[in-house]
């Protein structure tokens, strides 16, 4: 026994000296417990972080939001932009040994389009059929051109699960089988999710850890103290006010990326709306009363990006022709007076979080300076969302996670019948522009269309965008190769222990 123990010790010391500290677990602190780990159903941001290690997708984005290969190596559109043909990697197997091929892509897309409870149905609805050209070539056929399709495939809709494992398996999400760098090992609800390295991964050289463990730690202060104490390697969503603690600590690193998310003051312009619904002048007065820079400074230590648009400046579809208007209280007061409304009163509804609470109180103070009376209605999350979905609000502080492509943001919020169009807004002109942009594959022409769209919705003001949040990841300095993209997902590929 002693001899074997000695052998073990010397072997492990050898391993250490050789720098192959890869027999390690990467522990990542998540704010929320993900919902089901089935890409067809998943609906949480923290779930997307886990999916990155678990499930590869057809295509991915890079830091500039350009589409880059993952399971598909190249792709091309036919002449009238109704068929997307993709060449697939031929060296990929799923965690259960099933080979990945064109047939698997078809099975996956059809599963997500038809499965009961699928959350991907509307995202994939433009695809009318999937044709298997050969073992490693597949064609997605559309009825009409749909430019955002590739962008849709960079998220869960593009994630491929093993058709053998998924076939008829109602509880697939409890033990998912995909083709990503790590395979599912264990999950304890509200506690942790453990994944172990998949040895047959096609890109195994880029994978630095033997296992990844996602720990659920709701409080950002606790996540921070855990990385400070060294018992957590990575922590997501560090509070903007805590960044100084990481920047000043040499044993920690801060990784950031401007985000796609937008927080906005959604105005009900429909029947349930208040005095703002019928008065574009009062809506303008509200916007003029708001100092976005001050909100950013006071609520977020100046670490976020103030904005007046739904599409962030990191996207090429942000309209540079529409800079953030300066705060002008006098002009706002004049508009309020000219409106002739006696003591205009408005109510802001929001989810009772500390962040939204602070923003709401700042907004209240600012808008009141223009002559409004502003009341606040903080509601506990589920009742807030219930009211939001029912369109039962005058103004609502909305937090939208954003997408790499502008269409899912602009169409869902402003398009007539869009799934987030809950404020009764409808503009024929804007609908026309947004639908034209969907069918336009030429980037420059598309930029022009979204420029027109910005002009329309910034004039109509169905909402007042406030800021884009920034992604902040804190990590131990011993973890190398972390890069955060605008989608805020922690990508495990290329990440390893420092030498």
């Amino acid at each position, binding site marked *: 026994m002693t001899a074997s123990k000695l052998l073990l010790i010397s072997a492990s010391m050898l391993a250490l000296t050789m720098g192959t500290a890869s027999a390690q677990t990467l522990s990542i602190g998540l704010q929320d417990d993900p919902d089901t780990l089935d890409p067809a159903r998943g609906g949480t941001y923290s779930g997307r972080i886990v999916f990155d290690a678990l499930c590869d997708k057809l295509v991915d984005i890079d830091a500039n939001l350009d589409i880059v290969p993952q399971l598909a190596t190249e792709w091309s559109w036919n002449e009238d932009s109704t068929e997307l043909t993709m060449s697939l990697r031929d060296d990929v197997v799923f965690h259960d040994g099933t080979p990945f091929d064109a047939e698997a892509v078809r099975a996956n897309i059809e599963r997500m389009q038809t499965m009961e409870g699928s959350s991907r149905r509307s995202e994939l609805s433009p695809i009318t059929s999937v044709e298997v050209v050969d073992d490693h070539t597949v064609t997605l056929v559309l009825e009409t051109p749909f430019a955002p399709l590739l962008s849709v495939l960079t998220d869960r809709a593009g994630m491929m699960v093993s058709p053998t494992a998924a076939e008829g398996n109602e509880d697939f999400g409890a033990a998912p089988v995909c083709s990503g760098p790590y395979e599912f090992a264990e999950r304890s609800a509200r506690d942790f999710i453990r994944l172990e390295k998949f040895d047959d991964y096609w890109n195994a050289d880029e994978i630095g850890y033997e296992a990844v463990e996602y720990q659920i730690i709701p409080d950002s*202060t606790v996540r921070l103290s855990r990385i400070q104490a060294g018992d957590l390697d990575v922590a997501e969503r560090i*509070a903007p*006010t*805590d960044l*100084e*603690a990481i920047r000043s600590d040499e044993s920690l690193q801060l990784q950031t990326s401007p985000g796609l998310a937008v927080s906005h003051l959604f105005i009900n312009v429909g029947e349930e709306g208040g005095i703002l619904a019928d008065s574009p002048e009062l809506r303008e007065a509200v916007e003029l009363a708001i*100092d976005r820079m*001050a909100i950013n*400074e*006071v*609520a977020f230590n100046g670490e976020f990006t103030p904005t007046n648009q739904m599409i962030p400046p990191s996207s090429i579809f942000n309209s540079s022709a529409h800079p953030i208007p300066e705060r002008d209280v006098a002009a706002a007061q004049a508009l309020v007076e000219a409106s002739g409304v006696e003591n205009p009163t408005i109510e802001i509804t929001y989810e*009772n979080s*500390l962040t939204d*609470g*602070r923003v*709401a*109180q*700042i907004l*209240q*103070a600012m808008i009141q300076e223009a002559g409004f009376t502003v009341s*606040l209605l*903080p*509601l*506990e999350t589920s009742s807030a969302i219930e009211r939001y979905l029912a369109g039962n609000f005058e103004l609502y502080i909305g937090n939208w996670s954003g997408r790499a492509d502008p269409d899912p943001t602009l169409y869902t919020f402003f398009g007539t019948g869009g799934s987030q169009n809950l404020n009764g807004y409808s503009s024929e002109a804007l609908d026309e522009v947004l639908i034209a942009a969907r069918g336009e594959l030429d980037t420059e022409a598309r930029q022009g269309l979204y420029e027109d769209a910005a002009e329309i919705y910034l004039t109509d003001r169905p909402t007042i965008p406030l800021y884009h949040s920034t992604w902040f990841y804190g990590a131990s300095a011993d973890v190398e190769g972390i890069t955060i993209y605008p989608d805020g997902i922690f990508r495990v590929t290329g990440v390893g222990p420092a030498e």
Partner: protein
Amino acid sequence: MTNDTSTPAPTPLAGPRASGRKSALRRCLSHPSTIIGGTIVVFFVLVAVFAPLIAPFDPLASNWGNVRQPPSALHWFGTDDLGRDVLSRVIFGARASLAAGIIAVALAIALGVPLGLMAGYFGGLVDMVISRLTDALLAVPFLVLAIALAAFLGPSLQNAMIAIGVAAMPIFIRLTRGQVLSIKNEDYVTAVRGLGVRDRAIIVSHILPNVLAPIVVQGTITMAVAVLAEASLAFLGLGQMPPAPSWGSMLDIARQFLTQAPWMAVWPGVAIIAIVLGFNLLGDGLNDTLTPQQEDG
């Protein structure tokens, strides 16, 4: 709850109070706990009443250029995350806390004491229904019940008071019922009953005055619990609505800034401790002075 009120208090006063009000008052005032506790409570009451005169700043006035500033000659307690003066907010916060304490306890007494009188005096079915309902309410921990009620009623200071009052009510039912049971067969009660006095008059003029002392003591102690409960509800976002200050909601916001701006948490925390201590000392003092007096009698 800290007080087990299921046991009736020591032998109650036989007949109308032996020693007059004056001596009871004198005894109370000479007890050290009552003096210290009373002083603290009176201090906070004065602060709450005269808040607009004492507070150096408007508690709602934000100053964007002056957020999370440490205590200084201008802002004695520093400023908060929106640049508001912490001292002024603590001063105005006393209003929410005291209102919650006093109104919630008043509500608990107003509901609990009549129910306890009825249960104790009439007995039988009335007693059974009231007592079983009380048992059911007491089975739920006080704060959990208050949170559930507040969440059900919706967040506001008024609803928080109602929730705390209802959650604190069963203890008064039980206390009053126990007291009534122990005196309702006393000779003087039997005597007035024999004279044909109506039940209502007996309860109001002969029973109620003789069960009042323990209720006053319990009320004072419950006041401390209610203040703490209001702070807890506000901390959870179920009490005073922003931007109006409450010590609990101030703590809730301050916990995010514990390392950068500890003064945001310290002062509301100290205020909560002080007022709870005040009510508890006062309750202890009253308990010591009011209860023995009955034993002597």
